[in-house]
């Protein structure tokens, strides 16, 4: 089965890069799941947990805050203001603009 190439990128470094069987990301309006073969997509990311399931089982979890997710030909790129294994002590101001007022 095809797998996903996943990259989690924050402005100053690549936080994660690797293969995955599936990805669950915190989109602006709720969790979004991505499996291999997903249609091309661009989505705003809110803040929350991103989980990356390894092809051989097991998963990695990251905390992300604000950004944008791009899916294209089994490549998943998540650009985010914050990404780490720990939740951010404080959500950066630059990440807040991604989620506020989106309900209107």
């Amino acid at each position, binding site marked *: 089965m095809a797998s996903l190439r996943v990259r989690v*990128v924050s*402005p*100053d470094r690549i936080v994660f890069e690797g293969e995955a069987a599936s990805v669950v990301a915190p989109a602006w309006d709720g969790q979004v799941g991505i499996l291999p073969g997903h249609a091309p997509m*661009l*989505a705003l990311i809110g803040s929350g947990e991103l989980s990356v399931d390894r092809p051989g089982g097991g998963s990695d979890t990251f905390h992300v805050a604000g950004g944008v997710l791009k899916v294209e030909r089994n490549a998943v790129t998540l*650009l985010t203001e914050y990404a780490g294994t720990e939740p951010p002590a404080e959500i*950066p101001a630059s990440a807040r603009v*991604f989620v506020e007022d989106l309900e209107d």
Partner: protein
Amino acid sequence: MAGSREVKRRIKSVENTKQITRTMELVATSKLKRATDRVHAARPYSEALHEIVSGLYSPELSEKYPILRRPEETKRAAILLLTANRGLCGGFNSNLIKEARNLMDDLRRRGIETELHIAGKKGVAYFRFRGEPILTSRIDVSDHPTVQDAESIVGPIRDRFENGDVDAVYLVSSKFKSVMSTPPHTRDLLPIQADGGASSAAVYILTPSGDLILERILPAYIRNAVYTALVENAAAEQGARRSAMKSATDNAGDVLEHLTRTYNRARQAQITQEIAEIVGGSAALE
């Protein structure tokens, strides 16, 4: 002999200078390594973000969002200049200041008002000395610039553009082509320069919508341009300092060689003279 003592003292002083410049060269080399690593680490984000923005951008959106506005005529422009906080790095700071001055003169010739925003002690000191008003000045950005630094520098300028206080924003910093080549460079930050290859947006599922995604990521896009410039500038500064200190060290070596030779010649002359005096004295006794 008075002459040789004087030379000896100068040799000591040049040796000390050489030791200092050599140390600074080594420090700059190790900082340069880390700074270039940061330049490379920042690239994946920039590239991916640029791709997304160019894919979503279309000129029609400029009516809708202030950050995308395209003023028909430019009345007032902001110049954001990034320099180093410290000197002893050759022409690094003065090249940047010259670039900013040229840009300022050029804009004023075209009848455009200018305003200055500066990050870096050297740039602030220069323009303050020249009596140019500086709107925002920052001297607290370290050798290791952060995303927050970039945000706090560019945030107010971005707001000024959105409110219509300025119609264009230029960024003056060093482009980090390689360690050896870091020319000063002016970049148009706002209005947004994008190719608008809107074709790719058509095939994507866009959530919530193309416009909204673009509006939300544009501040990050602008911020990232400044962050990249800060990081590149920091690396360019260390590169410039390393080569300046290397030539100072080499130069001190040359001066030392010359002085040592002068000293030895004086010493030899003195010995020769002493022998001649002894030989002369004993010849007179016979």
